Structure formats: structure tokens, C-alpha cells
């Protein structure tokens, strides 16, 4: 039974990942619930959640922008992207705007280094960005949002699932 408990505990992160995917963040209530489910002290679950950058403790925006700050992107200008986005959206790294529409965070390498600089919005990757392209992309999201709140580019709130247009 020691073995079973141990195997179950090793599903903790996967469970938290599912919660993060469906809700977009991990609430206090979720931590309590999952702690009970796994028979792990809540403070320990909270500790696991706070250790990994994937888990958020506050709800993200409808469109979550991840700005890659990997080496190639950084050299070519990721910090500028953060600045351009900050100007365009009025939020900084790790923040959500007041309408809950956009949130932004700087992330470790997305693995698309030849296309630097790269961002991903709700999992969709945009590469070889300059200021013009970046702002155009943001404008498109804003425009789509304005028209009846439905967006051509809406993905589910799920994280970096690179579905491409094929799916």
C-alpha cells in the first residue's frame, strides 16, 4: 500500500496541471481539494504549486501572452517586446490588465530559436516579430474581441497546445 500511495503522489503535478489548464490558475480552494484527494498536507501542495512557474495563483487574462526570453530571442530583442507590449497593453511582466483581457509573462525558451523573437498567445506561436508585426497581431486580437466578443483566433484557455490550423 506504500507503493500505491507513492504512485498516486507522483500524479500530483499532473493533477495540478489539469487544474491549471481548465481554470487558468490554482485557487486556494483547489489546493485544499487536491490536498485532501492526495492525502497530502495543504501546505505541501501549496509549496509544490509555488515552486513551478507553470502554476499561477491569480487568474490570467482571456488572452495570455508568453514572451520568450530564451537566448536567441533575448539577443535579438525580447526585452524590447516586453516594452512594446507594456506600452500597447498597459501591463507589465506577470500582470493581467484591468479588463481581464490580456495578461503577459516572460518565459524561458519556447524552443523556436530560429524564429526569434517569439511570443505565444494562448498557445499560438508568432515568430520573427518586429514592432509593427507585434502591434498588428495585438490589434487583430483586440478587433476580434470587439466584434461580439467572439474571436477568430480564440483558442481554448488551454496552455501551449500548438494545434496549428490543421486541428
Amino acid at each position, binding site marked *: 500500500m506504500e507503493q500505491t500511495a507513492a504512485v498516486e503522489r507522483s500524479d*500530483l503535478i499532473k493533477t495540478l496541471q489539469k487544474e491549471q489548464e481548465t481554470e487558468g490558475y490554482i485557487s486556494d480552494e483547489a489546493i485544499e481539494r487536491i490536498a485532501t484527494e492526495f492525502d*497530502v498536507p495543504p501546505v505541501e501542495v501549496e509549496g509544490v504549486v509555488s*515552486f*513551478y512557474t507553470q502554476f499561477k495563483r491569480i487568474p490570467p487574462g482571456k488572452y495570455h501572452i508568453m514572451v520568450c526570453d530564451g537566448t*536567441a530571442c533575448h539577443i535579438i530583442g525580447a526585452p524590447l517586446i516586453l516594452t512594446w507590449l507594456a506600452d500597447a497593453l498597459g501591463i507589465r511582466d506577470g500582470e493581467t490588465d484591468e479588463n481581464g483581457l490580456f495578461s503577459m509573462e516572460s518565459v*524561458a*525558451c519556447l524552443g523556436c530559436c530560429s524564429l526569434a523573437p517569439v511570443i505565444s498567445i494562448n498557445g499560438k506561436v508568432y515568430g520573427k516579430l*518586429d514592432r509593427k508585426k507585434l502591434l498588428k497581431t495585438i490589434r487583430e486580437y483586440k478587433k476580434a474581441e470587439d466584434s461580439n466578443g467572439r474571436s477568430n483566433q480564440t483558442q481554448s484557455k488551454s496552455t*501551449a497546445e500548438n494545434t496549428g490550423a490543421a486541428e
Partner: protein
Amino acid sequence: MVTRIKVGTASCGIAAGAGEVLQLLRKTAEQHGTLSDVPIVEVGCIGHCYAEPLVEVETDSGRYFYEKVEPKQDQLRRILNLEEQGRFRPNEARAQKERTSIMALAGRIEPTSLEEYRGHGGYEALAAAHEMAPEKLVEEVKESRLRGRGGGGFPTGLKWRFLAGKESDNKVLICNADEGDPGAFMDRTLMESLPHLVLEGMLIGAKATGARRLFIYCRAEYPRAVKNLNTAIEQIRAAELNVIDGHAVDIRVKEGAGAFVCGEETGLIHSLEGRRGTPRYRPPYPTDYGFHGAPTAINNVETFANIPQIVRYGASAFTKTGTENSTGTKLFALAGDLQYSGLVEVPMGLSIGEVVFDIGGAERGGVKAVQIGGPSGGCIPAEHFDTPIDYDSLSSLGAIMGSGGLIVIGTNRCMVETARYFLEFTTRESCGKCTFCRVGTKRMLETLERITGGEGSAADIERLGDLGTKIKQGSLCGLGQTAPNPVLSTLRYFNDEYQSHVEEGFCPALECKALVDIFIDPDQCNGCKLCIKACPVNCISEDFVVDNAVCTRCNSCIEVCRQNAISRVAKGGAVRVAS
């Protein structure tokens, strides 16, 4: 006659727009009539990421690549009719120097087609392994002198021998796919493009070591890789390829959750166990006490990818490539200031210069250094570019092989800023447990920020060297032990840049914001005002003077100016120019 069309939809392809190309290609082919039955499939990466989106057309008389394909119907129609001009060919030098061995099938076959993989010899090695005694299998790997491709360079055969020698029904073999080095995408490419190759290597490992549970610990940031691996695993189970010595070996993919330190063996194990991914002291090594106490061995993705060929063609064939102490090939993720970025596979022993200039197409005389090994590695200056790429030659230069990230640093990049960038990464990723790493890296970062901020002193440079050495000595795990490397190597080879920042307040590359002003040359300016419009902080006056106190040095104005009138100059004087 067109027999099949392949579109590269690995992450680099998707980011370049391959998704739209694929969709439109299918639509166009449907309308075409004669081609409506031709399979249009998604494949992985062929390593020429700079050329994505890539479309390959297979005919009964040959294969043709087209690069940078756009989702435009008339181009796609021409491609389908084999009328399109400008077929893509990799450059000569790369074609010569590359040695496509584990990457041979990448981009050639559908990643999750078991039949296609088998059709090209896949799982023959596993079949051969079944006929061998485990000790013989381990011996073969030992003879190949294959060394861990994750950065440590530990002899794989030796590691498997340790695990094989343990008496246990619970042995675990883990594939470390937590490729966290910024700028590295070798493992991502392998997993997206050739999941079966990696899994075959793991299954052979299970046979050799007696492991009954296989885990792939993969970064959450690689969803495509996770998807393809899971599909491949299902296929393996369905075909019962995971039955080894009468046991159905359990294979599963576990995702990381965004912690670079989980690439560290014991951090990885703790994360796998559902805990905070902080490493612990070793010994005991994982082979003695690993996942939930069971004997465990951890190998890198690329390491596993090399196994099938060793078993299929034998160790001595394998040792014919590479050097005496670094056999086989190595994947490198080339990025930075070069023409042909992407994934390359080269025999060990090729020189840095050959990779950078011949394969990568970087400009001779335009390269200052390469960064090898990511945040754990070192910068190697151009004068050492004739050094062969193998584990021992690199470490003698104060660098490490690392997992394969190779960043080409042009002459107009600041080495101090590069070091600061890597240290910022490792400081952020530190697990926080041990004093020297948690506090030491933070203090080194603060020191570097002073230097790049124009407020550094000679004492600061001395501190970097002293503290860097101490952090290497006093840290609990590899993250802390290697975090100072980029700083120490740049101090060694580019000390003059540090001195320049500190003594003269001058950044030779004109990169460090605090030491740079933006200057509009009135003689070149034609008054078009594009710069004023482009400036995100409105710091350019109507008479074309930049308010450098407000300017964020974003380069927007420089990008839009058609007169080349705007440039970055050393703070306080327009006269000095980047060296």
C-alpha cells in the same frame, strides 16, 4: 508523379506559419482533382529551421524541397504541379560537414507512423536486443563509448551497468527531456520528429538494465513533443513492443511544470515523485536510491536516440565516427548571428569554426565568440575556433559541451551583457535550497547589473571572479556549480570588455542601455518624421533631438529610418564607435 507531400510542422515550422500552409495546401490539392488523393502529411524538422515553412514533394523520380513557403494559392498550385522554381538545397558546406545519423529520418517520415518507422528499419535494433543477453547489450553500449548527451558526458554504458547490477523488480529508467537551456531545441526536435527512435532506445535500455518502468520527463513547454510521444507509446503498447522478457514495461510521459532545476537528476526524481523539485546531495546516486528509493538511471533524449544504431550496427561501427574519447555525433541547435540557424548533426571532432562558418554561414570576421552549453557553459572566443568539438577539448577551455545549444555571438554583442543574461536565468531558476547558489548567484547578478548599468568598479570585477569560484565549490547541485561559468569564461577571454565598462563607462558593443545614447545625425536626416511616429515613448522632439533620459533604447527609430541617420553612440560623446 507526386506520391506524397510533406509539410514540416514541428514547432519551428508552426511558428513560421506552416499551419496555414498545410491547411491551404490541402484545400488546393482537393480542388486540383488529380492530386486530391495524394497524401499530405505532417512531418518533423529536418534541421533547416531558417528555411521554414518547408514543403517536400515526393515523386517517383525524386524529392524536392521548397523553403519559406507562403500560404498563397498560386504558389502552392505551382508546387503541386512541380512548376515552382527555386527548390531548396542546403548549402554545400553544410551538406559536406553534416553527418545525419540519428536525424536521418527526421522530416522524412511521419513522426507517429509506426509503419513508416518500421519500413525504414525501426525496431530492428530492439528485435536484435531481445536476442542478446542483457550483459552483452550493456557491454555493446560500453564499447561504443557513448557519453551522455545531456551535458554531463558520463559514459552511458557504465551507468547502465550500475543499474543492471541491481537486484530489484522495481528498476526505473528515465528519459530526461526537460531541455531547459535557453537556445537548445535538440531534444524537442527529436521527440517531435522521431518519437519512436527515442522510445526504441529506451526499450532497449529496459532490456539491458532490467528496468520495468520507463518515464519520459518532458518540459510542459513542448506540447507537440508530448503529444507525439503519447501517440507513439499507444502504438507501442498496441503492438506489444513494450513486452520485454515477459513483462509489459510501463512507459509514461510526465510533464515538467516549469523548473529548469528539474533537469538535474535528483531534482527530476523529486518532481516525478510529485514534490518540489529541489535536488539533494549525492551520493547516494540514483542507481542506488532513486525514484521512490528504487534503483534508477536517467539518460538524455539524444543519448537514447543513439542506442538503436549502436545495437543495429555494432559498437565498433559507431566508434568510427567522432574522436577517441567522444564517439558518435552531436546535435547542435545553432542560433544567433548567423545565416543558417537550425538543428545540425555533426561528427564529434569537427571544429567550432567549421560549424559556425561552413555549416552556419556566419560571416567570417563578424563573429566574436560562441556560447556553448547554455547557462552552464562558457563563451569561446574566435581565436579558439579551431578547437575540435569534443567533451575534453571544450572543458580545457573552460566551457562544456552542454546539451547542444550553440549561440553565435556577433562582434556587435556585449559579452558582459551576455554573461549577465545567463546569470539572470540561473538566478531565477535556482531552487533556493543551498546558500552559495541561492544568495551567491543573486549577488553576482547584482554586481553584473551594476557593471552593465555603468556603476561598476574594479572591486566588482574582482568579486565576480572570487564569488564565482566559491559558488562553483560550495553549491549542492550542477545548477549552482555551473552557473558562474558564463561569467568566469567571459572574464577570462573578454576581460577588456569588463574593464571598459568599469573604467571608462563604455560598452564596446554599444549594447548596454545605461552606457548608450541614441543620436540622430542632422546631416543625414531628411526630416521625414518616421522616427517620431515610431517612438513608443515620444522622446524625439520636432527638431529631431532624442531625449535620452526618456528613451528606452528600443531601436524602433533606427529600424524605420531609411536614411541611416540614427545610431547608437557611447553615452556622453558621439565620436566613439563600436569596435
